[in-house]
């Protein structure tokens, strides 16, 4: 994570990444860099004359402050593993596809597609920006996969390789089928219309053979339409009926089937094409609606499993020799290495080294937890600082994290396929249509059998709720897109319908209401002179501990003093002699005088305010306080939503900030502190048993259970591409303040759907009027049906767009 630090004395920004530079010491010519990493990338690109990269966008790079370890990609040397990552290889040329989350602008595309200029053994590289994927082919004899990955990492585009990549999945095939179907339906629609023109214009064709030929050609064209394009409606309708549920596909299938059967009869008996043009138009519009609603965010993964964040392999340490083995072969009792920034895959005991474990992946809490030799380290933590050696305590499948995950996976039942206003409505609609059809049949039965059959059939045809079926996909599909433009990504349109029914909101605190990356450190006690402050800064500058770094950046003084006999005591703090005085920064028990133990940090609930003390010559002179900052939008959003929605807060932390939160949530009863992940899930269950529709907003893995339990679970994320637990939607933290608008807009969209139902029914009534009299001609139906569809599509898209503009979402 790149965290923005406090501004230094002069505002200098890095030529490569745009981060604030602490000094201008790292530079080439006029160009200043924030770190050696950024400078190296510039040098590489400059040497190959690839500086167009910097011309396309200003400061396009990503910060290189966290440099990867030399042997981080050693596991790629394993031939078996490497071959599983490759898409294709013929021994000479290999093709591989990487997921590169750092990709963010046109400069990235340009550079990544010019990789062959950096290494002549890379033959071609191609970017898919939307999916953040790079596929490249390279000469296997001259270049190994590891070298390719290292080349990418050296210019700041380290690929994200995970466990999941080893199992190649075929995707987007269903999407393609939909395109094929639409293509065929469009083809059929156009040609059938063309061939129906003699019928439309009522041209008196004396040559009946020609007329019959036309009819049979139309019949031929409609066969793939009916059997291929329309098949999924029949399947869905039958599925629904089996479960004794009349979904929207039932009346649609009924309409399609009657249209087809009646028209086939017409072709064979009378040699005219019947209603085939209506059938083709109907299918074409329906498929168009399906494509429109199927908007997916390919770069996001809503089902993301914690496993996709595990490393592929670990460095095993056996009798002094390091060996890379696949993660699946790791056994209890094995000793392995975890380097800076690597994730711990299994519960283990710290064997050697200093552990500063960042559990933000699991808890959402950003301050690292210190671990000493002999202590237990839980899976899911990320080591920051120097490498540590661990001994596996439990198998991966038994570890705390895995259990946490498996226990909470709530299977959302299949109510999705049956929900939705259109489906609820369709039951009554279908029965009404069947009723009208039967009534008109009975009415005509006595006088004219022919008209009776005709009326029965045409009522079923004209009742086909095409417009009804289109209103939901077009309204909600458009809403989905509008939300996406505002950095609120929803899994699918069913989630939107659920979001419209929400009446209760449950918040997670850490990482959701508070900021994750920017926990601040402030001088809480003590008066120090500028000189003393600069000495403290110099001392902190000697340590790689994250807290020391925060202290270092929080002091705005120059550091021109040297530290003698610097010492870092793991888990306690740092000390050193500056100008003859002993300075120490750290936990209370660093100085023997105080002798008190600070309470050890709990795994899941780190206190929100931790303190770091400053000692000069053994005397406590002051302290720093680490404070998790509330997002600046938090109060506004909560106070706004409180009016309309029942709002609750669930926190894994202790209740130190109860007072402030009580003012936000109006009463103490709305707050729950010290909640374990299971408690959170149970709380949601309790609310649901009171018939509440719950929206849960959370961020960490500890919210995973609650998120999947709730009616709509939205995970909040600083960086939408980074980890988020399985959820129904991902909201960028930047747009937290817009949540009330999003909820409001969703409700309005649902109202728009109801309004378009009215329009669609009006068209149906007109159709009924003619149909019950047996007067519905194929021409009239060919005009009425597309007209109703088009007017519903225009109405829904226009109203949602206008509404979005009014609410400032577009």
């Amino acid at each position, binding site marked *: 994570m790149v965290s923005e630090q406090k501004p230094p004395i002069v505002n200098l920004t890095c030529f490569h990444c745009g981060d604030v530079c602490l000094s201008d010491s790292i530079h080439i010519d006029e160009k200043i860099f924030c770190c050696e990493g950024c400078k190296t990338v510039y040098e590489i690109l400059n040497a190959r*004359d*690839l*500086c*167009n990269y910097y*011309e*396309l*966008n200003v400061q396009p790079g990503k910060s290189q402050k966290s440099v990867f370890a030399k042997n981080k990609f050693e596991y790629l040397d394993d031939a078996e593993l490497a071959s599983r990552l490759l898409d294709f290889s013929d021994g000479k040329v290999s093709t591989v596809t990487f997921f590169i989350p750092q990709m*963010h*602008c*046109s400069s*990235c*595309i*340009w550079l990544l*597609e*010019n990789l062959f*200029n950096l290494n002549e053994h890379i033959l071609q590289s191609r*970017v*898919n*920006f*939307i*999916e953040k994927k790079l596929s490249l082919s390279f000469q296997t004899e001259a270049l190994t996969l590891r070298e390719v990955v290292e080349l990418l990492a050296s210019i700041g585009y380290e690929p994200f390789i995970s466990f999941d990549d080893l199992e190649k999945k075929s995707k*987007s095939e269903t999407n*393609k089928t939909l*395109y*094929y179907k639409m*293509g*065929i339906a469009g*083809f059929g629609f*156009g*040609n059938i219309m*063309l*061939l129906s023109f003699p019928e439309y214009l009522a041209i008196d064709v004396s*040559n009946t053979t*020609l007329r019959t*030929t*036309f009819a049979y*050609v139309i019949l031929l064209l409609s066969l793939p339409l009916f059997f291929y394009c329309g098949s999924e409606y029949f399947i869905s309708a039958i599925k629904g009926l089996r479960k004794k549920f009349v979904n929207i596909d039932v009346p649609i299938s009924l309409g399609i089937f009657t249209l087809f059967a009646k028209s086939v009869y017409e072709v064979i008996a009378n040699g005219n094409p019947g209603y085939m043009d209506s059938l083709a138009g109907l299918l074409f519009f329906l498929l168009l609606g399906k494509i429109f609603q199927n908007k997916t965010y390919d770069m996001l993964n809503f089902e993301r499993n914690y496993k996709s964040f595990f490393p592929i392999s670990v460095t095993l340490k056996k009798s002094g020799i390091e060996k890379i083995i696949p993660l699946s072969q790791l056994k209890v009792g094995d000793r392995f290495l975890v380097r800076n920034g690597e994730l711990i895959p299994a519960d283990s005991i710290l064997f050697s080294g200093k552990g500063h474990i960042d559990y933000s992946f699991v808890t959402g809490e950003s301050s690292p937890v210190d671990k000493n030799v002999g202590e237990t380290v839980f899976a899911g933590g990320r080591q920051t600082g120097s490498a540590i050696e661990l001994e596996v305590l439990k198998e991966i499948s038994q570890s705390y994290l895995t259990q946490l995950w498996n226990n909470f996976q709530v299977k959302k039942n299949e109510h999705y396929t049956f929900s939705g206003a259109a489906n609820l409505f369709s039951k009554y609609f279908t029965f009404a249509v069947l009723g009208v059809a039967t009534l008109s049949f009975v009415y005509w039965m006595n006088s004219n059998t022919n008209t009776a059959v005709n009326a029965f059939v045409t009522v079923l045809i004209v009742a086909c709720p095409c417009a009804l079926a289109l209103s939901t996909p077009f309204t909600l599909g458009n809403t989905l897109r509008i939300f996406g433009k505002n950095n609120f990504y929803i899994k699918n349109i069913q989630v939107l319908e659920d979001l419209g029914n929400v009446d209760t909101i449950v918040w997670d605190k850490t990482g959701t209401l508070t900021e994750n990356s920017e926990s601040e450190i402030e001088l809480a006690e003590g008066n120090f002179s500028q000189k003393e402050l600069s000495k403290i800064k110099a001392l902190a500058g000697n340590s790689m501990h994250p807290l020391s770094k925060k202290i270092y950046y929080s002091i705005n003084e120059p550091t021109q003093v040297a530290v003698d006999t610097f010492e870092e005591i793991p888990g306690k703090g740092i000390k050193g002699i500056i100008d003859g005085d002993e300075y120490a920064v750290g936990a209370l028990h660093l100085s023997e005088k105080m002798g008190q133990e600070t309470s050890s940090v709990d795994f899941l609930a780190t206190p929100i305010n931790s303190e770091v003390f400053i000692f000069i010559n053994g005397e406590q002179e002051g302290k720093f306080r680490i404070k998790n900052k509330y997002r600046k939008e938090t109060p506004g959003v909560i106070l706004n939503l409180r009016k309309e929605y029942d709002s609750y807060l669930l926190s894994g932390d202790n209740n130190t900030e109860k007072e402030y939160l009580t003012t936000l949530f109006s009463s103490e009863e709305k707050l729950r502190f010290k909640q374990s992940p299971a408690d959170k899930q149970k709380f949601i269950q309790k609310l649901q048993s009171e018939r509440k529709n719950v929206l849960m907003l959370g961020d960490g893995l500890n919210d995973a259970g609650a998120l999947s339990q709730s009616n709509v679970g939205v995970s909040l994320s600083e960086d939408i591409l980074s980890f988020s637990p399985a959820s129904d939607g991902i909201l960028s933290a930047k747009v937290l303040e817009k949540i009330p608008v999003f909820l409001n807009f969703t409700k309005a969209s649902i109202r728009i759907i109801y309004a378009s139902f009215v329009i669609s029914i009006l068209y149906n009534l007109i159709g009924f009027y003619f149909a019950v009299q047996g007067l519905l001609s194929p021409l009239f139906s060919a005009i009425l049906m597309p007209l109703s569809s088009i007017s519903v599509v225009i109405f829904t898209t226009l109203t949602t767009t206008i509404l979005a503009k009014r609410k400032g979402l577009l």
Partner: protein
Amino acid sequence: MSVVAVLILFSLLVAGGFLFAFMWAVKSGQYDDKYTPSVRMLFDDKNQVFSINKKTNTIKSRTNVEKHNAN
């Protein structure tokens, strides 16, 4: 009137050709990425390999026009 039948057959063939082209395009993945090509076409061709610094001026003037952020 048989000329009409021939024409119909011909029109179906032409339309069928377009349908085939569409399906081919879908199959070959042209609809998989609808964004990147729009950016790619604005880049200069691969003239960078052995280009000298003099060139930067021309690149600069051209790229300023399309300076946009993909974010």
